[in-house]
């Protein structure tokens, strides 16, 4: 099925779309029997260097309920200057600007290679990007110093006309005024009192425009002088802000013995959200929260300030012992929704050895498309580089970030939209194509993604609603159009439209077509997203059971076997890797909370829910490379058997990058052979994985944790916990000890897993 793979790859490159099925079952019933729903991973802003945006606005279907964008799939009557919407079949005249249209003079959007096209909107005011730093001052001195430096550095990375603001918090929350000369001025808020947006506006003196004195006057844009006090163009207050950051002190309030510092993260965020809400609604803005510990007071507090009360663990949560969890979560969700509604995204940079309350706060980033970065300290390259990478620029010199995205999905009549899983919120756009069967964030065809980057990927789930008794005509194709409006980092408003079509197939007669069109990678990720989404609200074991059941059903559906004969079980190539993905998914930190703190789980899940397919797959099933004298580096099985004394292993789990030196290599290295001229090759061998790792470290966001370890090293656990425990202390002797390393675990190995799977799949009982 090389063709399908090529097709898939081609489609992904062109449109940023990966469907679970590339031929669609034509009836609702059949579709449900496919187990893996019809769904896709869509990367709205996939980088397309070859796709210059067009400088005009899209032509919309005139039917008010449709408003689909003119696309290559539309039938065009060049003579009548009419086009027919391929979603609602409305006939629309071309706008006057298209008067010269003809077969040979077609606008780009009609050309098949422009199934994805980007328009630049000319109307509307252009507002500069806004970056609001929300900085925790309850940090250790070195941490704060490092953070201050990073922030100062970041000023140089911002576009000169971008607006920046600074809020610091500790026991109190300070909103710094950036406009004044000489004396530095800030508005201070108590860290324990929640304030409404209106109150915040009033207290910050931003509500003057609406003062009664102005009655009768036409509405004026918000007073520039007011807002500008807190948000100033970088080029104006570069020096001031640098100084200000330089003078930032640690939170001056004494922290008694046995207490945590009082940290008003909740209020700080609330004020940040309120500030932007009042001054720049519906404008691209980033609230960047830098925190070094859990919120300990006020609304949104995660843990009390008594050190003797540890922060909640999964165990506490299961036992319902986490006092502040629900309240705080609710609080942050409300905040996140407000921010998202206004198109502002929230980043969380949490650097601490202990948990910082990401579990509660994660929604802020998840709902607004912001980032979560977790590290041990701000004084690490992990943070510093990751933070720097936020401001990466694309080939055009623009930031790789976009704001205020609204993604709209249009579907053919045979389809409905079930929902989306990704960093977005629903805009509650009801319509004909909204499925009653909600998956993820459903009930709408419009979602808002406040912060986007070229890798942001949504999982979108569909429902085939075509009834069995109303077959689709032969050769009929279903179409889906993604319309993404967003604010480009150049402050332009842009619309990217992707229109794709797939063939319908009757699952009864043409199952092999459908089977062949299965994209097991995309399916694995899409199913994983479903599972992780469920895991947010359900008990872990339930999710695992559900996943297992789906897997078994899929095997039953598409496997070839004799009933009750596990050994006869075969899966076609299109499905061959899928069970393995599922096996690793079950062991992944996305579903397993064992050994992970709630924060870590939240962090992992956050990234899993937004990364594109490749990255997601790495997360599900880490990549393992082996370096040896025996040949070039090669990918090897993620299996304990790959752990050999004379190899160097490089494992990439997305979050960690582990270089593992086998026992022998480690001894050699310890003996210093690499420093001897005659062992130059050894030196090179040692260097090779480092170079490769460096490459990954350079490009990935967030920067993975880099671990250099060796056989017997404590950090080797990162590797050992990931590999398939084909050799354990239980079966050590049966497999022979010359190969691989035994893993001390009771987890089932892939082999056992597969055996069970086969058994269950062929079982007539299920």
């Amino acid at each position, binding site marked *: 099925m090389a063709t399908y793979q090529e097709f898939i790859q081609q489609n992904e490159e062109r449109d940023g779309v990966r469907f679970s099925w590339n031929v669609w079952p034509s009836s609702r019933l059949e579709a449900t029997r496919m187990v893996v729903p019809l769904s896709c991973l869509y990367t709205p802003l996939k980088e397309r260097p070859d796709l210059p945006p067009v400088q005009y606005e899209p032509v919309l279907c005139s039917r008010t309920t449709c408003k689909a964008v003119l696309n290559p799939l539309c039938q065009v009557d060049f003579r009548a200057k009419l086009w027919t919407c391929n979603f609602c079949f409305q006939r629309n005249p071309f706008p006057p600007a298209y008067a010269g249209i003809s077969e040979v003079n077609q606008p780009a959007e009609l050309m098949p290679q422009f199934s994805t096209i980007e328009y630049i909107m000319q109307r509307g005011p252009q507002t500069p990007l806004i970056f609001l730093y929300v900085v925790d001052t309850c940090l250790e001195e070195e941490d704060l110093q490092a953070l201050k430096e990073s922030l100062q550095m970041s000023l140089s990375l911002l576009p000169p006309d971008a607006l920046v603001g600074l809020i610091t918090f500790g026991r*109190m929350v*300070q909103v710094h*005024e950036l406009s*004044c000369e*000489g*004396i*530095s*001025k*800030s*508005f*201070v*808020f*108590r860290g324990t*009192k929640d*304030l409404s947006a209106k109150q915040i506006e*009033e*207290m*910050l*003196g931003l509500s003057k425009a609406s003062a009664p004195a102005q009655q009768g006057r036409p509405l004026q844009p918000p007073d520039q002088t007011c807002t500008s006090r807190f948000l100033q163009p970088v080029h104006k207050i570069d020096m001031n802000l640098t100084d200000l950051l330089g*003078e930032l*002190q640690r939170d*001056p*309030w*004494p922290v008694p013995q046995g207490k945590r510092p009082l940290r008003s993260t909740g209020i700080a965020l609330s004020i940040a959200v309120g500030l932007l809400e009042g001054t720049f609604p519906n404008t691209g803005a980033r609230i960047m929260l830098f925190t070094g510990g859990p919120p300990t007071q006020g609304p949104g507090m995660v843990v009390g300030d008594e050190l003797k009360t540890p922060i909640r663990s999964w165990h506490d949560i299961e036992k319902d012992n986490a006092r502040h969890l629900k309240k705080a979560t609710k609080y942050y969700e409300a905040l996140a929704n407000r921010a998202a509604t206004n198109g502002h995204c929230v980043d969380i940079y949490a650097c601490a050895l202990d948990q910082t309350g990401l579990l509660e706060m994660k929604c802020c980033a998840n709902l607004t498309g912001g980032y979560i970065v977790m590290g041990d300290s701000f004084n690490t390259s992990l943070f510093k580089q990751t933070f720097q990478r936020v401001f990466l620029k694309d080939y055009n010199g623009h930031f790789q970030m976009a704001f205020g995205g609204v993604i709209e999905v249009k579907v053919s009549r045979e389809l409905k939209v079930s929902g989306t899983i990704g960093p977005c919120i629903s805009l509650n756009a009801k319509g004909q194509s909204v499925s009653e069967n909600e998956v993820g964030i459903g009930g709408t065809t419009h979602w808002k993604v406040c912060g986007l980057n070229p890798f942001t990927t949504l999982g979108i789930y569909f429902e085939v609603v075509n009834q069995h008794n109303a077959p689709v005509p032969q050769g009929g194709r279903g179409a889906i159009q993604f319309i993404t409006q967003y604010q480009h980092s150049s402050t332009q408003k842009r619309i990217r439209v992707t229109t794709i079509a797939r063939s319908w197939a009757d699952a009864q007669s043409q199952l092999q077509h459908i089977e062949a069109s299965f994209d097991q990678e995309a399916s694995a990720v899409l199913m994983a997203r479903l599972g992780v989404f469920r895991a947010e609200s359900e008990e872990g074991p339930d999710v695992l059971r559900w996943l297992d059941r789906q897997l078994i059903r899929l095997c039953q559906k598409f496997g070839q076997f004799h009933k009750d004969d596990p050994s006869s079980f075969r899966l076609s190539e299109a499905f061959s890797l899928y069970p393995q993905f599922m096996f690793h998914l079950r062991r992944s930190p996305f579903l397993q909370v064992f050994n992970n703190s709630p924060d870590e789980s939240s962090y992992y899940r956050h990234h899993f829910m937004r990364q594109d397919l490749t990255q997601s797959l790495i997360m599900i099933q880490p990549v393992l490379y082996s370096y040896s004298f025996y040949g070039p580096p090669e990918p090897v099985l993620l299996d304990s058997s790959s752990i050999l004394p004379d190899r160097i292993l490089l494992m990439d789990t997305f979050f960690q990058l582990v270089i593992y030196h086998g026992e022998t290599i480690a001894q050699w290295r310890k003996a210093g052979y690499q420093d001897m001229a005659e062992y130059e090759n050894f030196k090179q061998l040692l260097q090779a994985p480092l170079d490769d790792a460096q490459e990954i470290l350079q490009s990935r966001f967030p920067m993975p944790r880099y671990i250099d370890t060796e056989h017997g090293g404590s950090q080797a656990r990162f590797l050992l916990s990931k590999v398939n425990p084909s050799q354990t202390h239980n079966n050590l002797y049966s497999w022979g000890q010359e190969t691989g390393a035994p893993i001390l675990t009771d987890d089932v190995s892939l082999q056992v897993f597969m055996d069970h799977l086969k058994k269950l799949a062929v079982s007539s009982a299920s």
Partner: protein
Amino acid sequence: MNVNQQTHMSSTHGQSQPVFPGYHQSGYSGQPLTGGTPTQYAPYNGPVLGYQQGPAVQGYSPYSSFPAKALASDLSSSTPLDLGPVRLPPTSMAPPVSLQQPYNHSSQIDAQNGPAVVSNLHHRPLDTQTYLPGGISPGVNQQYGAQPTSTHQISNQMTGMHISSTDPSSVMPVYAPSSAHVATTSVPSSFPSHSVSHASQQRSSPHSLPTFSSATGGPPSSSQIPYSSAPLSSQTLYSAPPPPQQPSFSTAPPSSQPPYSTAPPTSQAPFSKVSPSTQPPYSAAPPTVQPPYSAAPPSSQTPYSGAPSPYSGAQPPLQPYSGPQSPYSSAPSLSQPPFSGTQPPPQFPGAPPSRLAGPPVRPPGMQGPPLPQPSLSEPLSSQANHIAPGSLQSGVGLPRGPPAAGMHNQPSQMGAHGFQPQQNGAFGQVRGPQPAYGGSYSGSQNFGAQPPPPAAPPQSRLDPDAIPSPQTTELPAVQKTRHRIDPDAIPSPIQVIEDDKANRGSEPFTTSIRGQVPPLVTTRFQVKDQGNASPRYIRCTAYNIPCTSDMAKQSQIPLAAVIKPLAQLPPDEALPYIVDHGETGPIRCNRCKAYMCPFMQFIEGGRRFQCGFCSCVSEVPPHYFQHLDHTGKRVDYCDRPELSMGTYEFLATVDYCKNNKIPQPPAFIFLIDVSYNAVKNGLVSLICEELKTLLDCLPREGPDGESCIRVGFITYNKVLHFYNVKSSLAQPQMMVVSDVADMFVPLLDGFLVNVNESRAVINSLLEQIPDMFADTRETETVFGPVIQAGLEALKAADCAGKLFIFNSTLPIAEAPGKLKNREDKKLIGTDKEKTLFQPQTSFYGSLAKDCVAQGCCVDLFLFPNQYVDVATLGVVPLQTGGSVYKYTYFQVAVDGERFLNDLRRDVQKQIGFDAVMRVRTSTGIRATDFFGAFYMSNTTDVELAGLDSHKTVTVEFRHDDKLSEESGALIQCAVLYTSCSGQRRLCVHNLSLNCCTQLAELYRNCETDCLINFFAKYAYRSVLNGTTKSVRDSLINQSAQILACYRKNCASPSSAGQLILPECLKLLPVYLNCVLKSDVLQPSADVSIDDRAYLRQLVTSMDVAESHVFFYPQLLPLQKLDVESEAIPVAIRDSEERLSKGGIYLLENGLNLFLWVGANVQQELLLNIFNTPTFGQVDPNMTNLPVLDNPYSRKLRTFIECLRVQRPRYMKLLVVKQEDKLELIFKRFLMEDKSSSGGASYADFLCHMHKEIRQLLS
């Protein structure tokens, strides 16, 4: 020496007379009596302590009851004789002498007649005044000195009162009586006369003058004759004589009489006729006094419906006086005339006796109460006099003269009985002379008789003239018409003050003796602490406390102590010793917890001590043990301040600290209003500029070393701006807190800083604040959150401290403690008036409580352009021991200096924090009520968040059991506080008082100034709960009861018409009237509600000296400023009549400073002061005198500076030109005059009081 002190009074009185001689020596010397007396007294004068003993022994011995009387009696007895002769000589010789004599006589009379004393007093003042006018200032002083004693006891003769009751005119007399018997009678006339006297000069003065001249020409007897002649011809004659009169007047006190003559005219034509006749008598001496009164009565009568009678009564007294003393007799005659003038005239002619009857109302009363015999005799005489005048104006006049003489004789005889007493009374009246007083009072009867002398009124003028004659001449004639009682005849505060200065200012006041009455607050004296606290720390209303509550109730004298725990001492007095008892802390009584003090009695060889307060016996801790000597005193008695001193401090141990933690050094936080108004009028820049230097002067322990006090800064309008001025910062940081609904402190580190460490940052901040807000448009402010902010800051820093809030507007911005403008002048005078003094929200009350808990003292500087609701804003300062300063319509140019000086003083003054004051007393009395700026969470502990050297707490005591005379009453006031360096200390003041079983003892050991302090505070607090009218009434009532009780139980029996005042309390009426007329209790139309609230709060923490000058402002004639000497001119009484057109006066009441410039001031003076030759060019807007290089200017400016330094608040100088608009304001401070708001004049009020007393007695 101490005129005020009763015990001394007697002696003093006795002395006083002598004093007179001494003073007048020239004149007196002539008199044998004077010479004799002085010698006797002289010893007394010497040692203050000695007063009691010395005088008592000598003088008392004779008179069983009161030494004073005894002395007086002796004196009187002798004096009368002496006087007789003296008078004669003087008359013949020189007017002054005659005057003195009359005085003497009067004094004697007074002594005899309890009341007479008063008359004497009055006379004296008059005399003095007259003398002054006469041009002999020294003489005047002397006279005053002497007079006070006599004046102390104001005995108005009731007879006069009665009469007055019948006749309105009589009312006038009431006052007169006290002042001068004559006055009563002459009242109507006399008043005019007064006016005349001052202004009269035109009319009466001439007349009077002639009379005087005549008087001068010949002593009493002779004078009468002249008078008689004068009366007859008085008008005509006067007119002619006038010119000569003046001179004569000046020389002779009689001049006062002349006024009477003028008065008569006013009185009536018939009177005039009569008056002439009366005048002659007046001329004698008393007349002068009487006249004024008489003059007053008429006018007053109408106002005082009731008063009339008293006046009449007063008049009678005058007569009696006149009767008693020859001079008086003349006076009485004068007084009588007024009566006659009022009505009597016809009666008189009809039948003198009948008049008596007629006046009867007056006379009867008068006669009845007073000594019947004297009165009778006197009345007769007086009547005769009067009659004479009345019947035959001209002819009668002559006869009258003789009668008068006769009268004199009779009176003198009387005097033997009553007069002597009077004198005694005059001297010691207050105390013991009572019986004698009766005698004097009898004199009052005479007064009743006096009425006939209506002629007196015309002469009455003379009195005033006599004193102010020079001035009076200048005064507008208009004034003359209103005359009533002779103001010079009623007790003069100035006289009392000057006497006290003279008697007690020279010797140090040692506190070794129990129950010693200290010198007046106006007297400069040195205190030596020998076991009792200095009066600078504690003053009491009574130094001899009734043993039982019944007695206390009967007397109605409140037992109160005015305590100023951290009072500043003059440089020549030693600061309290600081005692450190180590870790165990101060030794205390086991039961009542009183601290070790000189009152603890060591027993059992020193192993135990018995508490002087509760008598409980406690063990002496081993480390404190010491052997006793043979007298039972510890051997180390002298080495331990707590055993030998009245005041000392203990170092407190950690047990005495809040939360058992050694306190942090305190902090000062400056909170500056930066709203539009404050910025615009330059206030913000001014404050910032000043703070730069002021911060170097924070209070510190000891002269060297750095202040431990940390400072912080906040500015605010609708929001608050905190400043981080940490020394490590390059620039200050501003932190805005907008969440005023829920105030908090945004920063800790860097907010409160050491000035020296952060100086650069602070200076930078102070530089920038004005600029930052230069363009502000914010007009709304908050206030509650401002205090909260300061409080929270102190809480966060865990220290006590003080907030300096500079606020300019009413806080109307939305925030806790938001206020609305509730200024509603319509409420004034209604039942709801009290709400204006109450805070409009309870918010500040609870805030204050929090502040106190933290030791957060709040000082508020207000700069309002409109209503700011001081009543509410002042709640927190008031309850935290803070102060409120108010600068209405603040302008930098005009008020800047005042504000800055106040601020400087406020910042620099020594202050303690987090103070708790506890007053312990002997079993038997208990501190029950407290007044001042503090908070009390229970009934015993006075909590002051801040306690500075100006703060005063008035404590009222009540009996809960009996006291014993042997053990006396002990008071221990212990104040636990944190010093400005953060040291926890206990300041202990001990005071022992005597106890008495005789009311007379009580009345002899009172202190009027202190009493007034208490009354004012009590009244000012009462306005929160009642109408001002009820408050005034209750004050009057209580005072009347006090005086009535004295009259009933202590004074010698006398006519009901006599007003008899205890020596120590003789100024009570005048001061009380000042309190009643104060803006709080009786506001004039242009006094804002804020001002009233402000004053109300201000008075609450005043000490005695402040309250004294506040209620009775000091009025200093600058034209008498002696460039050469250090001496300051003697103050004059607060009355417009005392102002001379040609003079320049300085008036100060501790808050205001006026420079009143008469329209006819000498050019030289103007040049010297203002550098301008004409009156018209004097700039009324100047607030400081131009700096001129001439001795006068230098002296004057130095003098003004001295005054300012004396007072806790800087006084802005206001130049008031005569007839200028500002003069209206100025006149409000002339407390003896009738006020525009309806407050009574002194004389009128005295009448009223007399009436009240009479009602109580009947």
